[in-house]
């Protein structure tokens, strides 16, 4: 086959492989990442996928169809299949054909393409939610802006929303040059870049979108910076009470806002202030008798100038629906991964906004903005009577027996001993095991039952270095702000959950003082199903370029010890 010299291999299914060994790989990668989503980057061959969304996101960011085709053709090692080029051209052609504009006080749907306008005329959603004014122009019925965008996108036509935004209630918000905790504060360049790409100097092409950055990259800071840019009242939605507290803490630490400016709408709190922080759980809480989402009114409580959707990949469906009604408000989504289990990425695009920024994990690590994590899989032997019990047990019970392998306790102790003085987390699934560990290590145990105040107190003490080790249950999976955890030991996990593994490692990624290094250990009982689950769990991170070193034979007994255990 005829071969050209390039780092890209473009497959007919719109996957693009990037060979990082090639001298031009970096140049191609920076362009490719603008119109293709990174799927995985295990080793030297990175996999990207081009989708209609990724193309439209690229066009929304200012790239042209010509740029995209040129990047592929000039960087490709083999011929770019013609149907790939045809598909990209078609997708690019569709972008920008349909606009929403504001005119004479109305939001109007405009399409200059004659054939397409005829199709829209016949479209049921357009007929139901808009009034035809003239050829290629419709006046939207009130409150239908979001729905129209959603439905037309589903039909394969992205809508460019140029109808602008309501400014919202003004609120003076400034970033401090020195945080209230006494540290100099400045946005890192990638954070500033992300804010710029979102804001776009206030023009109609900016002001809504999603920013994708790894755990530990400072998404909260970016959200705050965007808020300061807009200086308006804002509603912040996030995934847990702990996150609510973290947002509050960061806002007070890094901006000119005072406690009176910030309200918490979560748990027992119902404060609606110029900056209001709520949980998804709260706004989607249904009244027991009426079945209503009574807290959804929060979206209308104030004249919000900005709504921030933290962990937007977890956005619940009712919030999607409500968001469809508030398209005149600026919207910012933050996440470490824009992949949804329910496949509603298109809705994120149409209702929140296009992806404005996407930064791979390893790239941030190379730049030193997140810690360099060494990942280790430690194989722990299952010996003696425990082994016999495992083999005799039913399959479901075997998972627990492998996870609760008693030999893991000694392994945890030894691993902690490798990192004296480093703040460490021990994370697991089974409370009984965690309880034993906490007892053995003389460390506090945090579970879902731990009151919020107690949690915050323990977090503070951990941050201060008063507590060297924290034993935590699954609550560690969610937004836990532990900036100085340098070691995490996972004693058990939820089957093959890649997201859980990524989230737990994410607890280590915040940059550290000194060598900016962290260690992640996952304890896996050898010769059991746990090894298989471990392999699955590691796939996402392997795709991000992380490799696991395997330590075998941990805790294997010699003949003398084996006899002892067999006899017990």
């Amino acid at each position, binding site marked *: 086959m005829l071969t050209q010299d390039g780092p890209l291999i473009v497959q*007919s299914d719109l996957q693009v492989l990037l060979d990082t060994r090639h001298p031009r790989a970096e140049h191609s990668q920076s362009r490719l990442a603008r119109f293709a989503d990174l799927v995985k980057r295990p080793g030297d061959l990175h996999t990207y996928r081009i989708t209609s969304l990724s193309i439209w996101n690229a066009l929304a960011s200012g790239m042209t169809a010509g740029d995209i085709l040129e990047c592929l053709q000039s960087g490709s*090692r083999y*011929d770019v299949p013609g149907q790939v080029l*045809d598909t990209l051209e078609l997708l690019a052609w569709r972008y920008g054909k349909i606009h929403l504009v504001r005119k004479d006080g109305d939001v109007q749907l405009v399409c200059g393409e004659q054939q397409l306008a005829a199709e829209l005329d016949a479209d049921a959603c357009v007929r139901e939610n808009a009034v035809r004014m003239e050829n290629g122009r419709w006046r939207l019925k009130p409150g239908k802006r979001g729905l129209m965008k959603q439905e037309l996108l589903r039909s394969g036509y992205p809508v460019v929303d140029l109808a602008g935004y309501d400014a919202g209630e003004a609120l003076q918000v400034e970033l401090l040059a020195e945080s209230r905790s006494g540290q100099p504060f400045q946005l890192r360049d990638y954070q500033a870049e992300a804010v710029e790409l979102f804001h776009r100097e206030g023009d109609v092409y900016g002001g809504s979108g999603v920013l994708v950055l790894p755990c530990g990259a400072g998404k909260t800071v970016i959200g705050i910076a965007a808020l300061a840019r807009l200086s308006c009242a804002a509603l912040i939605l996030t995934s847990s009470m702990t996150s609510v507290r973290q947002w509050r803490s960061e806002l007070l630490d890094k901006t000119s806002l005072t406690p009176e400016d910030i309200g918490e709408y979560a748990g027992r709190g119902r404060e609606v202030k110029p900056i209001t922080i709520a949980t998804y759980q709260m706004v989607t809480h249904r009244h027991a008798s009426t079945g209503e989402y009574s807290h959804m009114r929060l979206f209308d409580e104030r004249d919000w100038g900005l709504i921030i959707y933290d962990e937007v990949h977890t956005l619940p469906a009712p919030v999607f629906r409500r968001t469809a009604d508030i398209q005149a408000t600026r919207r910012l989504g933050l996440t470490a991964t824009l992949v949804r289990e329910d496949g509603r990425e298109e809705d994120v695009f149409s209702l929140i906004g296009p992806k404005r920024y996407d930064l791979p994990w390893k790239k941030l690590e190379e730049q030193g903005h997140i810690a360099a994590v060494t990942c280790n899989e430690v194989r722990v032997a299952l010996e003696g009577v425990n082994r016999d019990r495992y083999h005799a047990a039913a399959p479901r019970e075997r998972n627990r027996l492998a996870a609760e392998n008693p030999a893991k306790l000694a392994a945890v102790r030894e691993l902690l001993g490798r990192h004296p003085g480093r703040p460490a987390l021990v994370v697991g699934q089974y409370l009984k095991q965690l309880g034993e560990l906490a007892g053995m290590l003389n460390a506090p145990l945090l579970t879902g039952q731990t009151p919020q105040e107690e949690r915050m107190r323990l977090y503070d003490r951990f941050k201060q270095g008063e507590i060297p080790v924290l034993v935590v249950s699954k609550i560690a999976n969610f937004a836990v702000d532990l900036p100085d955890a340098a070691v995490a030991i996972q004693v058990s996990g939820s089957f093959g959950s890649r997201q859980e593994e990524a989230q737990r490692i994410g607890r280590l990624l915040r940059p550290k003082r000194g060598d900016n290094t962290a260690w992640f250990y996952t304890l896996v009982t050898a010769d059991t199903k746990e090894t298989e689950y471990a392999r699955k769990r*590691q796939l996402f991170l392997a795709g991000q370029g992380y490799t696991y*070193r395997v330590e075998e034979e941990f805790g294997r007994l010699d003949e003398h010890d084996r006899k002892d255990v067999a006899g017990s």
Partner: protein
Amino acid sequence: MNMRQVFSRLPEEAKARLGGQPLWRSWSGLAGGGLRDGAIGSDHVKESRKGLAAPVQDILAFIVRCFGPRPFPEEKLIQQYAAAAGRSACESRMACDELRRAGILFTVRKSWGDCLHFLPVDAYSAWNRELAPAAPRPHSESAGIRVDSPYRPRLSLQLLGMMAELAKQGIPVTAKGIIAKKAVAAASSRLLFTEEELALFRSADSAAGRYAVSFTAGLDAAIRAGLLKLGESGASWGEPELAEWLALPDGLRECRLLDWAEERFAAYDERFASSASLLRGLCAGSWYSRHELEKWVQAAGAGGGDVLTGWLGLMEAFGWLQTGRSAEGLEVIRWMMYPLAEGLPDPEPAAGSVLLLTGGELAVPHDTDYRSRWEIELMADLEREGPMTIYRYSQATISRAADNGRTSGQLIGLLTRASGGPLPEHAAQLLGEWGRAAGRVRFADVTIMSCSDEPAADRAEADPAVARLLIRRLGKRDFLIERSSIALLRKHLSAAGLEPSRRVEGESLCLYPLSPSWAEDAMQGTCLPLEETAAETAVFPNHREPAGLLQHPCPLYLYTLETVPADTEKRLPGIADIPAAWLQAMRDYHPSTRKEMLKHAIELGVPVKLDREGKVVDFIPRRLEEEGGNWFVAGQLSGQAESSLRLSPDMWRGMQLMIPPGLPAK
């Protein structure tokens, strides 16, 4: 039949005689050249052509154009050619004999005595290119051409995949002697050409019955190359041939497959044969206007657009050719391989190096050495095919490799060589772990379950689901079991982390053939030494290529090759009865004598000289006609095919019978 097959059937004296002919003098079969030169080159053809007299070149061109590589009876040729060229039958036969003496045209005799002439298919292909009008130039604007063809692996890769799937299954053959359906389905999935793409070609008709047409074609290619043998007793691998095939330079391997395709699909129809051979003369990698090619092929007499379309479609289906369009919308095509062996560059070691990704994935570029690829096909499953093909190895695939005799050390060695460097830790760890687990339990025969060590046996016995199926423990490592329990035991043992071997000792399945290891210097980047097998040496008198599955409507290999050109004297039967005077000088004869002379001339197929109004012309009489009590002779002027005369005896004066040069005169 091709040149090699013809040569192998000739007796020694005929071979020696051929060696003196320009066409054969340089052919590697005689010269003892390497595998690269196993084809007839354009230079050989040009030299041979120079040595042919004009009438001989003329009849050759006619044969090439009208019969192609199809066999034909001599009389049919003479009838059509003599009239078309304005030559006498005898002159035509003479020219035919010249072609046979030159080793260009060959003859077979059927068992009941009929003879057929033919051009060996590869020789025909070369002659067609030589005699055709000049090929069009490549399209000048190659930038901006958009490729329309979807990716298709080249045929050799498709065949490799097909064979790998058969090999993994052990080529199971049913009691009726056909390959089991499951194996056929798996193997067929690797062939990306369809029944529709083969439908135009007559040989495809012969494939109907046992297997789908596509699979039959794939099998045929493998059988014809000696890679696979199918017989009444089952199937087996041609291991030396397979080793050689895997080690071939990519270009040569593909070229030989193109020879096969030309022979199997084009040779039955002179229009396809002509299109196929002409297209081979185009430059590899250059874009050509389809419209220009169509005009060229039609000018060369190869038939209409459908023929070219059909052949291009087949070439595209075999991954050898791409179609595209220029910026102006012009349809263009290009070869993705070197279509002629003489155009092949010097062979270089395969450059592609395998990438080992996490999660057991292997990224294998298209130009990876086939010997590595063969082993990768065993040790991993195909995930996605493309210019960079992705495979994934797993416990199950490593066990499969172990069942076929590969150790984890060998697999690590293979991947180290194929990737050009030490394995990443994650890969070495996985391979080691899975290799150790593989085959820890074996089924030695239908009633014994055998473990590799006592701990494995203890572990098996401790598992309740396994223990229920064990009849009795024999010693430290073995158990008695029911044969019917094997499938269930496999499942439970696998769940217990004891990956059992898939093989049962005593079953007669073919092991996956081992890819040959290659020489040290190959790893250091020097050219691969090309091996010659007995089949490729210069003289192999008993060589018979396997017949394959696609049948020729006229299988020449069934007939006896006529090696001695016809006795020249027998070309003029009855010459002895002709008065010498008729041959020696121009004379004026009585009309009845004239008639007699013409009758003999027609029977002998010779021309006559006629004196017409003081001008002597060479006339070829074709037939005598009677009308109103008078007789006439119809014929042509010699060398003037468009002329047509009907003469009465009073239209000339003197006449003389002509014996063509080269025949004995009286």
